[in-house]
């Protein structure tokens, strides 16, 4: 929005009542709602995001969860754009403040010339500060009035939604439809109350205090497909379903829980089952039981739970049982920061097992990618009969994005296990081929039934301590990952294809890194970025890309480590031994701002 002139002049409050104002067209707006988690501002944000999605607009949201149990201050930020939206925005064009503390804590985030919409029943901002446009509305009072006091504070959020709808000339019918969908099912009165609150906000003569109303330019992007709007955990869960995963087990933990809650409710519809186990040790063991029985299964957690799964995942490496392990990362170590974001579980994913226990590690770049990475994970797990980690994080988990609806008839996989009788002479662990297990229920026509095992074994699965076989089997288990590495495409470079600096990222930093590259190029720098979805093994042939740049700067949300390098940077330096690989990290538990990358990694 900074690029567009609209709203850019610093206006002072006006009471000139001009009933209807000619709307200004804008391409992009960052709206931050600041209140308490009880106020349901998430709901408002979600509505705006859904609406944007429906209007083929790009949208990205950002929210914080209070770390206290009983709720407390929380924000929901939504960025809507007619063009590409890569990050939730470094500064707000619009700040909606419900309380004094909301104002105090977030006014810093409002850009000069931005609009502060505040509840004048709750507090008075410092009107002397001429940098902002002030729009005071007695939100609390008007809501109570509209709802007849019954609902107390409840409804303020929907009232604000109405306000925003009128300010941004949003499609109120579409919004009301969304409200009905959302509250439908509950008894009618709930829906009516919501609609009433919305109407009240929508009807409020905001024009009296605002010099402009705004309207988003129609999005230029012509996509043949409709958009779906959801958060990263939803995308991941539905991606698993599309990937043909029908069974799984887990144990609750923030921010993984909602994945398991969705799968627990959804799998039965597909004839499958997700089990809540007594702990993470049981859940990974159940998942392995499902996989062994022929149904590629999923388990998942956040750091603390993933640590508990380490031993069983090692069994999957040794017994060569396919398995998907989701790690929705949060701040560590130990219990750490359960509600903050961090990318500090990469080393554990790659090296967490005892012995040489290779596994595959993937990371999702954004909400849409949460869907597709799940399909990729399942493909690899089945083809190479291996455990596959999917790394997400709490920012992806809670972030809402709109993206092109996937073409299900194309991507969806039929997972039926192969129980066809096996011809004589099949070996459970052939040295020269990739292991293909015969699930129980499969007839072995030579009458020899296989045992899968975590002990070192010969080709028939019998335990052995033979020196030769241990070397051979260790190599067998390693080679399939080398084969996978050769099969993986080198990811495309965003921005400059060669030149000064190549930024390398993984996971949820995709948006801010890409946007940083765009902005840096706008100011004339030759910068590109490479985003890795396959972290272990790394795709073969990255050297070629590295050679085209003077500096390689790895950007990640984890600690610089004992020797000054973040976790991916460490892996890349070990792999390529190239001293030009540098590292830019942070550990404040927050997502990257574009500015931080511009200043920190491209200075």
């Amino acid at each position, binding site marked *: 929005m900074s690029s567009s002139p609209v709203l850019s002049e610093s206006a002072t409050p006006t009471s000139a009542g001009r009933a209807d104002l000619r709307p200004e067209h804008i391409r992009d707006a960052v709206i931050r709602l600041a209140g308490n988690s009880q106020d349901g501002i998430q709901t408002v944000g979600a509505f705006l995001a859904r609406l944007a*999605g*429906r209007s083929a607009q790009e949208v990205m949201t950002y929210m914080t969860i209070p770390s206290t149990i009983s709720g407390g201050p929380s924000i929901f930020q939504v960025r809507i754009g007619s063009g590409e939206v890569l990050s939730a925005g470094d500064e707000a064009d619009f700040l909606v403040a419900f309380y004094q503390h909301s104002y105090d804590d977030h006014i810093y985030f409002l850009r000069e010339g931005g609009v502060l919409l505040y509840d004048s029943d709750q507090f008075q901002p410092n009107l002397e500060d001429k940098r902002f446009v002030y729009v005071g509305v007695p939100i609390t009072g008007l809501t109570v009035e509209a709802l007849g006091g019954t609902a107390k504070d409840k409804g303020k959020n929907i009232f604000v939604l109405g306000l925003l709808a009128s300010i941004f000339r949003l499609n109120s019918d579409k919004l009301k439809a969304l409200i009905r*969908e959302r509250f439908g099912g509950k008894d009618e009165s709930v829906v009516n109350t919501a609609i009433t609150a919305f109407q009240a906000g929508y009807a409020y003569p905001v024009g009296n205090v605002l010099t402009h109303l705004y309207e988003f330019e129609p999005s230029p992007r012509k996509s043949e497909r*409709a*958009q*779906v*709007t*959801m958060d990263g955990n939803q995308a991941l869960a*539905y991606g698993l*379903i599309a990937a043909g995963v*029908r*069974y799984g*087990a887990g144990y609750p933990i923030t921010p993984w829980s909602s994945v398991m809650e969705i799968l627990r409710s959804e799998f*039965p*519809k*597909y*004839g499958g*089952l997700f*089990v809540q186990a*007594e*702990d993470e*040790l*049981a859940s990974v*063991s*159940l*998942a*392995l*039981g*499902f996989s062994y*029985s*022929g*149904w590629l*299964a999923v388990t998942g957690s956040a750091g603390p739970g993933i640590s508990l799964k380490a*031993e*069983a995942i090692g*069994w999957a490496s040794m*017994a060569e049982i396919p398995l998907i392990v989701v790690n929705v990362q949060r701040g560590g170590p130990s219990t750490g920061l359960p509600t903050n974001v961090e990318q500090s579980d990469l080393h554990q994913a790659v090296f967490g097992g005892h012995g040489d226990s290779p596994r595959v590690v993937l990371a999702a770049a954004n909400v849409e990618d949460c869907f597709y990475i799940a399909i990729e994970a399942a493909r690899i797990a089945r083809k190479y009969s291996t455990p596959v980690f999917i790394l997400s994080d709490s920012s992806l988990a809670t972030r809402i994005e709109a993206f092109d*609806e996937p073409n*299900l008839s194309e991507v*969806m996989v*039929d*997972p*039926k296990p192969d*129980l066809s*009788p096996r011809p004589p002479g099949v070996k459970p662990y052939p040295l020269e081929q990739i292991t293909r297990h*015969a*699930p*129980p*229920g*499969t*007839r072995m026509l030579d*009458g020899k*039934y*296989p*045992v*899968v*095992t*975590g*002990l070192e074994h010969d080709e028939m699965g*019998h335990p052995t301590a033979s020196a030769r076989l241990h070397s051979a089997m260790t190599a067998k288990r390693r080679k399939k990952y080398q084969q996978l590495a050769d099969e993986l495409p080198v990811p495309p470079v965003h921005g400059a294809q060669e030149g000064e600096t190549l930024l390398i990222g993984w996971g949820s930093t995709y948006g801010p890194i890409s946007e940083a590259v765009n902005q840096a190029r706008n100011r004339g720098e030759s910068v590109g970025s490479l985003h890795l979805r396959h972290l272990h093994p790394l795709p073969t042939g990255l050297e070629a890309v590295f050679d085209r740049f003077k500096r390689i700067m790895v950007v990640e949300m984890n600690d610089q480590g004992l020797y000054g390098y973040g976790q991916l940077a460490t892996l890349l330096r070990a792999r390529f031994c190239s001293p030009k690989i540098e590292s830019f990290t942070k550990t404040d538990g927050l997502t990257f701002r574009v500015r931080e990358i511009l200043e920190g990694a491209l200075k």
Partner: protein
Amino acid sequence: MNPLDAVPPVAPEREKLTKKAVTADHPTWCPACGDFAVLASFYKVLEKRQLPHENIVTLAGIGCSSRFPYFVNSHGAHFIHGRSVPLASAISLARPELHVFLFGGDGDGLSIGGNHLDHGARKNVNLTYVIMDNFVYGLTKKQTSPTSPIGYKSKTDPTGVIDHPVNPIKKLIAAGATFVARTHAAQVNHMIQMIERAMDHNGFSVIECLSECIEFFPGAFDAGNPRKGGEFKVIEEKKWDDSPEDEARHDVTDEIAAYRLADTAFPGLFGVFYEIDRPTKNALEQKWVESSRAKLNHASDVEILQKTFDRMK
């Protein structure tokens, strides 16, 4: 798509399932280890019951006893220490047509695996679990196990065990297991009976089988072995023939009575302590599957997911 589609058509020609057909590697156990007899009884049961060969699954954790799957020619898995109950539960839940047999030791099942045992029991997953209890850690060579009696001298209790041992039968009854029995590896016929009743039970069925570790705890169970001058006291179950004698007999559906019998001093009683019908997790989850699929009048996977996405537009 419904997982049950995955059940293979039982192929027509089936030669009889002989002992030879279910025998695999020669056991690596010490000569005269009690576990041989358990294996022999299991062979007998398989021969007798003639299950479809491919539907037999033999699973175990880690321990001498847990080497079991290598010695049975059936689909099997040798898992990690103490986690075989959840592994087995998943197989039972995803593949109801399979016969899931689980074997392991007292350390595997009652020490590191003790929690999974309780939760498997309360969830009443349909499987049969034989705990081969030798009162010691065999494979790791003579450390104290959760069932080692007070005073037993092990490498980790050189002056004799001091911790109050676990009573597996009480533990299982309190946890909500729906079939709880006890037998002795020196009593092959009794073992066979118990294994058959356990597999016929629809639910989580567990048998504690006293199986002597010749190497590290010889003679541990002589007190329960008539051939060694001991007594093999069997639980008399009610015949419901309202005969006066029947009064005194044990009602296997009476939890408190079962708990009291479990309190009998070593070598304790043998037979079925507790057996009740409670819906299995298999059945309850399957019911949920069916009702959800009915609601969607059995739409295809693509249709279901498409509908979900439509709601997200």
